[in-house]
């Protein structure tokens, strides 16, 4: 079972991963976006980790909801509302439960991913974070490792796609051949989750 403390450690691990990979995310974003994805997510998840360290909510739902709110108020761009909605919606779905199992977490994250789809109006194959998130939450009912590898595979699979949403869509055909930065950062979420769960 995974409790509030687990969720706090997950978010802290995401902050570390995003900080480590910020340069790579920005590099990917400069090819088809505006070269700030790494810096923006680092700012957001650093703020999340600080807020959670100071006042950790007791439940995993509370932790994810607080993290989502914090992202919305610190990141900006499209990533802020999208990542914020993912975590806030998942947190809401978990409710007041003091601890959840992996299946419960998978269901909550699936609700979060659905909310991201509604907010951004994207579907799988549009070359967005959904290309990593959607297979990852589906695989999470199997194992944490399966979720991580599905997310990473999904992110890699964005390379040949033509972007249909967000700033990369302005490039038309020229967006083909580049890995989507949002899908790449989404995969970090699941790498961090596996890391904390297996620790």
């Amino acid at each position, binding site marked *: 079972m995974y409790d509030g403390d687990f969720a706090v450690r997950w978010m802290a691990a995401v902050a570390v991963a995003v900080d480590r990979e910020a340069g790579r995310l920005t590099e990917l974003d400069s090819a088809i976006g505006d070269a700030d994805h790494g810096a923006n997510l680092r700012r957001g998840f650093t703020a999340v980790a600080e807020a959670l360290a100071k006042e950790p909510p007791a439940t995993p739902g509370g932790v994810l909801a607080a993290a989502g709110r914090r992202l919305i108020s610190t990141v*900006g761009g499209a990533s802020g509302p999208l990542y914020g909605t993912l975590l806030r919606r998942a947190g809401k779905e978990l409710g007041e439960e003091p601890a959840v199992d992996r299946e419960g977490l998978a269901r909550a994250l699936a609700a979060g991913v659905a909310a991201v789809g509604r907010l951004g109006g994207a579907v799988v194959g549009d070359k967005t974070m959904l290309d990593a998130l959607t297979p990852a939450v589906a695989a999470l009912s199997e194992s944490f490792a399966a979720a991580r590898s599905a997310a990473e595979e999904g992110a890699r699979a964005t390379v040949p796609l033509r972007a249909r949403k967000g700033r990369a869509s302005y490039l038309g055909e020229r967006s083909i051949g580049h890995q989507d930065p949002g899908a790449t950062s989404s995969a970090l979420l699941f790498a961090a989750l596996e890391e904390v769960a297996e620790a």
Partner: protein
Amino acid sequence: MRMLINVPETVVADALRGLAAAHPELTVDVERRVVVRRDAPVAGKVALVSGGGSGHEPLHAGFVGPGMLDAACPGEVFTSPVPDQMVRAAAAVDSGAGVLFVVKNYTGDVLNFEMAAELAEDEGVRVAKVLVDDDVAVTDSLYTAGRRGTGATLFVEKLAGAAAEEGAPLERVEAVARRVVERSRSFGVALSACSTPAKGGPTFDLPPGELEFGVGIHGEPGRERRAMMTSGEIAEAAVDAVLDDLRPADPVLLLVNGMGGTPLLELYGFNAEVRRVLAERRVPVARTLVGNYVTSLDMAGASVTLCAADEELLRLWDAPVRTPALRWGR
């Protein structure tokens, strides 16, 4: 790339401190990133709030003042501001007559302003929104995020701002803004990439002898790369791209906009070519503005924006405005 900055993390805050120091007629909250005209809220007046990523200066903070915006919310460089900023701005400028959010059509801006509108309405502020999407380089289709908001933002903020200053109610100010959007189109080219502080260098490589055709204002590459063209050739291509999409039945407002890294000498020369092409295409020009207004950091290049101006829009254009970057009349 050498930049006149301290560290990348503080460029926006540093600029806001400088803006505050230069313009005592503005109230600048550096911490919370909200720029407000000092006499806000103006009794009975509809308020205009805009915002967007930094790096496009003077847009938007440079357009805060009587006759234009009541408040602006600058985000990080090329990153939409967060909902908290817009909610705070709306609360600071709302006189009870309502607030119009002027939003450039980018996924991030749209999402954050949408969230802000909901939150502000929960706090009892009447909010209307107008989406600016004038860039014809982007096909407005299911397969893109839609046309980008670029140069026409200046027209929307000036003309709707003048309507609000005249005392028009929210519905009317919103209608003026929508009309300006419908009647405005832009097209831009880049002669160099821009360098963001976070990256510390150019956002893409542009080999010598080539230009980016159909660019936005965020250092992203354009629709295609072409061999370098003369000012006259670029004017023809840009004007024709705009006129493909906009058939002005009225004389136009013309904005010849620099992207930040092109000298005024070149921009005025470009304006002469744009006017020549417009004359050849039999499009009369009512008013012209030449300068760096909707920029992309240090990117070299220019954009052309046309707005088909009926009599009311022309009157609103001529109305007094008093902001750091645009001021005329009284």
